[in-house]
């Protein structure tokens, strides 16, 4: 009796196969547009993980495999087995390159934790060698973050972290400022990012640029997120830089009589501390009170 329906079945299949095929293609395009496509799977990956893990990844357990590998790397860190840890970190970001925290924390392990540990490694008596190791791991951290940015160019956090690494670990303040600037360009970047630009410029000796930067912030909008900016600190930094650079009083931001290095300086009255007033404990993330504009 199947002879009666096989041609109807065939007709259905023939008519709908191309519809299905092209609809899938359409969805795949949408997937790519949203950046949703997983990082694929190639032989390179296969070489770095066990067979069971490879099957699990193909079977759709990618996230969980990565989680376990990350846990494994964490254990290696606790046991201080750096050379076991590094390939695992590499594989984790290979499997899920869009989870920023893997890059962030991995680089942090390399450039901060591991580099410190090898520098005080008592098993290695030669200081030069220890320093070389330390430098190596900082460089690895930097490389890691650069790769992170290559995979995730839309993340302010990674630019910031790279800048932070260059600032803290390599004292390359000029480059740090560059990356802080890149991070600050993103609208979702928090306010402290742009403050870091100023600090990096100051530390790097580019005081004029730093001053310009602070003044730009000072003269910028104070609405929305910016109301929580550290306006009093920025004022202090502007003042300090203007004094250091010996900017003519006519060009300074604030009235002349408020600068200690001016002859017209008027000392503001010291307000004695009120014994009955206690500063209420502020939760760490509460908004800061608005400073009155001078």
């Amino acid at each position: 009796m199947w002879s009666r329906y096989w041609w109807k079945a065939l007709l259905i299949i023939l008519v709908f196969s191309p519809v299905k095929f092209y609809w899938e293609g359409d969805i795949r395009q949408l997937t790519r547009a949203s950046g949703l496509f997983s990082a694929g799977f190639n032989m390179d990956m296969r070489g770095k993980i066990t067979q069971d893990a490879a099957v699990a990844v193909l079977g759709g357990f990618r996230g969980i495999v990565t989680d376990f590998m990350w846990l494994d790397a964490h254990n290696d860190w606790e046991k201080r087995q750096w050379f076991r840890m590094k390939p695992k970190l590499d594989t984790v970001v290979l499997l899920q390159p869009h989870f920023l925290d893997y890059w962030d924390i991995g680089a942090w392990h390399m450039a901060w934790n591991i580099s410190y540990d090898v520098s005080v490694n008592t098993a290695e008596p030669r200081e030069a060698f220890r320093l070389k190791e330390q430098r190596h791991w900082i460089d690895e951290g930097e490389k890691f973050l650069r790769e992170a940015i290559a995979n995730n160019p839309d993340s302010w956090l990674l630019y910031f972290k790279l800048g932070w690494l260059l600032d803290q670990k390599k004292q390359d303040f000029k480059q740090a400022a560059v990356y802080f600037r890149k991070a600050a360009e993103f609208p979702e970047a928090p306010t402290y990012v742009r403050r870091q630009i100023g600090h990096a410029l100051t530390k790097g000796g580019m005081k004029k640029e730093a001053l310009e930067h602070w003044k730009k912030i000072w003269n910028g909008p104070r609405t929305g997120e910016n109301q929580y900016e550290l306006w009093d600190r920025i004022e202090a930094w502007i003042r300090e830089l203007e004094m250091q650079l010996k900017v003519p009083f006519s060009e300074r931001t604030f009235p002349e009589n408020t600068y200690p290095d001016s002859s017209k300086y008027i000392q503001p009255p010291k307000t004695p501390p009120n014994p009955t007033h206690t500063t209420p404990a502020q939760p760490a993330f509460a908004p800061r009170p608005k400073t009155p504009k001078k």
Partner: protein
Amino acid sequence: MSTPVADIADQETLSFSLARVWVIATNTMTEVIRQKVLYVFVIFTLVLIGASSFFTQFSFTTELKSIIDTCLGAIKYLTALIAIVGTAMLLPSEIENRTIYTILTKPVYRIEFLLGKVVGMSVLLLIVTAAMSLLFGAVLFVKEKTLIASALQGSVGGAHVSDQVQQAVAAIHAQARNPDLLKAIALLFAQSVILVSMTIMVSTFATSSLFSIIIMLLVYFCAPLSAVAHEVWSAQGSPLSHAGLMFINFFIPDLSSMTLVDDVVVGKTVSMAFFWSTCGYAAFYSLVVFALGTLIFQEKEL
């Protein structure tokens, strides 16, 4: 007893009736539930509890990620399993128990019968998915509170303590209250519906439930590969090989767009266009496959 009881007894025509479909659907649901399928919740709860206690880690976001990965993975596989195994057993058990004769010898269309089975399983899976999501949501809620409390208590040393903490809290919120998680779960349900329809179709010609299950498991595991194959083969070959490819491709649903939980966890957003296109695809494919199944079933000798 001389007046006709059924209000259609003397009519000349019998139209397709959703009421009949629903009667069969509720009967199917009762039957499946009685097979202790709800014990799956016990398994799921264990997974939830295990995941929340096992993945305690140094970093809040990776901990939350691990928990979300595990729980969503559990929902994905448990619903797929129920969809395939539960559906595969429906027709063979009716035929074996001969209860099918008592139904199909009534004024019931075969399509109503099959549709009733599909609707019953789908509604059951909807309830199961929703319940699992609620449980998962509760765990996430509790974990979010715990992690934020830890974040506030201590913070990694650095220059901008309050900012860092603020950022950490914001990150935890973003992860735990990610609305795309709901979309991801909805797409998992779409996957279940495709699996139910396809399994019913396979079971109309399969000789036993085991046969259906094996075929469907094969299809399920080939499905992710079809996405890869799609790309590779569509780039090369003659029109004839393309046609042949499309033919084979017809039998393998592209489930990759419905199982993008990994990507959602990592923070990618699901656009509405993508969401609706995928839902539409799932509905379309389920209907076509169901139509095939109906065709085969109409001609089946019982």
